[in-house]
């Protein structure tokens, strides 16, 4: 079925609000998913992977900074989804880059790292260049990278499946490099790399703006089912609270 971007965003906000995400964070989570889907990067598929676990994060510790100096930091996200912790990590590397010219933040124990792309894009729009790299999978590990130049609206993205195995410490890690001085761009050194350059990302966005978003009825129903928990059931009282037309 076809829905508008606004419908998807509103439903996702309710879904994450109902799942215990806090104010500001449920908007971020909704925007991260919408951004990927709108730009042809399978945000809804990523959401399907994340959906069974989204209410588990409320019982996990908040991210903690385990190392920090003027140009770098290491953050432990304690197994949280990027949907509720990656924006703060990008803010931190952004701030360090503004102060030092270039900075790196590594995030450990973070799921759904693909969602970092929205936060990277916000940095580009605001005049700072940023790149990210992460790996996924045990055997035949897949590598991912994305980068955006200062002042741009669209990042480039590439992924490649290798025949290498991931080391345990890299499995749920994400490295973010940010610079206020240099324009960063990334490409994977692998012949099977799937590359979406910034131009293609923009074309994908145009398509979504024109046509809306395709979503499976089952996923749409599930998002709305979860989100219904923020609605108050009908009663005489709730009707009276509308003003008694």
């Amino acid at each position, binding site marked *: 079925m076809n829905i508008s971007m606004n419908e998807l965003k509103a439903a996702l906000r309710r879904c994450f609000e109902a799942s215990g995400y806090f104010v500001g964070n449920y908007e971020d989570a909704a925007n991260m998913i919408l951004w990927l889907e709108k730009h042809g990067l399978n945000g809804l598929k990523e959401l399907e992977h994340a959906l069974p676990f989204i209410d588990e994060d409320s019982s996990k510790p908040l991210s903690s900074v385990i190392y920090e100096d003027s140009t770098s930091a290491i953050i432990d996200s304690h197994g949280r989804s990027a949907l509720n912790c990656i924006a703060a990590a990008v803010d*931190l590397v952004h701030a360090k880059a503004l102060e030092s010219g270039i900075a790196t933040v590594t995030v450990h124990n973070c799921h759904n790292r693909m969602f970092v792309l929205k936060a990277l894009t916000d940095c580009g729009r605001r005049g700072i260049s940023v790149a990210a790299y992460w790996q996924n999978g045990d055997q035949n590990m897949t590598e991912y990278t994305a980068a955006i130049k200062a002042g741009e609206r669209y990042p480039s993205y590439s992924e490649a499946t290798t025949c290498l195995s991931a080391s345990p410490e890299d499995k749920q890690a994400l490295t973010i490099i940010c610079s206020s001085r240099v324009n960063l761009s990334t490409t994977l050194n692998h012949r099977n790399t799937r590359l979406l350059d910034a131009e293609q990302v923009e074309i994908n966005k145009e398509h979504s703006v024109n046509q809306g978003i395709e979503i499976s009825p089952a996923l749409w129903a599930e998002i709305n089912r979860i989100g219904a928990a923020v609605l108050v059931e009908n009663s005489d009282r709730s009707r009276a*609270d*509308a003003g008694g037309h």
Partner: protein
Amino acid sequence: MITLAAIQTSMRGDNALPLRPAAQVMNLERLGSIHQSRLSFMRSLVRRIMRERWQITPVRFELDAEGYGHVVYEIKAPQGLYSFVLFSSYLSPEARNDRVIATQWDLTMALVAGQVDDIYLEKLRQNVPKQEAGRVDARVFVLSRANRSARNFDYVVDQLAKGEQPDIQQIAKVGYLYRTTAVYGSGKLGMADWEKVRSHYQDFARPFAAEMFVCLMLRNFSLVQAEHIARQRTPDTFQPMRPEIKRYFGIGNSTGLGMAPYLVNHPLLINRWVEMRELALARVRALGDISPRILLQLNELIARCAQHTRETHTEDQWQTENNRRTLRDLDALSTQLQEPLHDWDRLIEWSEAHCSLQGQEMLTSILLELYPALVDDLEDYFCAEEFLDLDPLMPLQTLKSVIETRYAWALDTDFSAEGARDTCWYRSEEKMEPRLGSIIDAQARKKQMALGVGYAVRRCYDHLCAYIEQNPDHNTARFMVARPKLRGIVRRIQSMNRCIYGDIQANLLDRNVLPMHLLRCKLAFFGVSKFDPRSRLWVRNTMFQGAPLLEDIGNRFGDDWFMPLAPQQ
């Protein structure tokens, strides 16, 4: 034509114009006291249609003798071709319900990009009359519905069928034939997103322009339909309505709480609307030449506003008292103007000392009306990019100081006082419509929406002060890693600090909060008149009363339908 750079230098820096301060302008009661002006969206839309001479033609007109059926109008605007499609169905009096939860209406309609062929018309017929229960695609960018004001409609048809004109006194009481109960856009029900409308349909690339256009077309249809039925009923005696009486018919509107959260959830957009209105006033204060012609026009407008207010009928005691007070203010203003007037600042200061907020804001609208050349070009700047961005580098001491200056109103509110947090806003299962409840209702309290910006700022400030004690050298990014639950409010504070006016200054959780002010504020930006509150939570009003008719397009146009008056019988 003014540029964005000129606007920026008019609002900031050493050459800025004398803008009214945020503490004055963003007060909720004042925002709830503003009136329509020549920057209101209806006025801007009609100016555009008239100046660009849009061609609006009925290409299908398939109504039976009772006015049921469908019509399609094609709209040729300079940058696109659109279709307005309307379905008219029989609705029993018992099924006629203005509440948003209704499922049937007299009229349903859609604004669509491009021409509509038979196949697409059938698709629309399957979905548009169902409204929320139907689905449309991204060619559609507005959906709406309307119910008859049955008594008025039948009366007007009877009069025209008899060859007589409607009685003006009666129209002055209810100045419309139909009331619209919802106007949907921005991607609802599968429609085109605002991003598409803004980038692809340039003719409607201003806030709510497409929604206002549908209401204008509805107003046109209501008059066409009444004449059609009367003509079919008694062709021998039928007389069309006189144009000046037609123009006095607007379209009714019922607005409830659904509009209120919009103002809180779109702070950058609302700030922009307020900035443009205030910049217009500042331009008038600084640049508006006071000539004998302007003074004459000023006195005429004051008299017109007084007459318009006298012709406003409401059973609501609160609104009646507001209207009476406004009349006293206008009377006092007329007396004051017998003294020599040399600058607008004096007159505005006088109004601030002697008039109610409604009276003061009426004067603002009048002053804008006097100077089209200083005001109208700002209408192109009512859109805003709505990014609430975090400033990660901002030192925490700076963030604290921003809160102390920009949110002094929130810090001055005693949230521990009785009643200060008794109200909660929540969404009902019924079409997810907002409701205003009490924290006594456990469900409502648990599921309340985050509209208490003032209280959130207060809590953020308290956390921030405690954090600074431990980490005086940290910046905002580091604070956000440690306190991620505050990310939403911190980025709002920082983003609104980049604006001239910022957030609405009111505790929306207070037991005595008046949501009517929020509704009225947005409706005034739309350009409605004749506010008629039906409770503290919803209001009837009239749109496009006095506006030109479709048949006026292409004729001379004075853009002078501010505060319209009943025509002489």
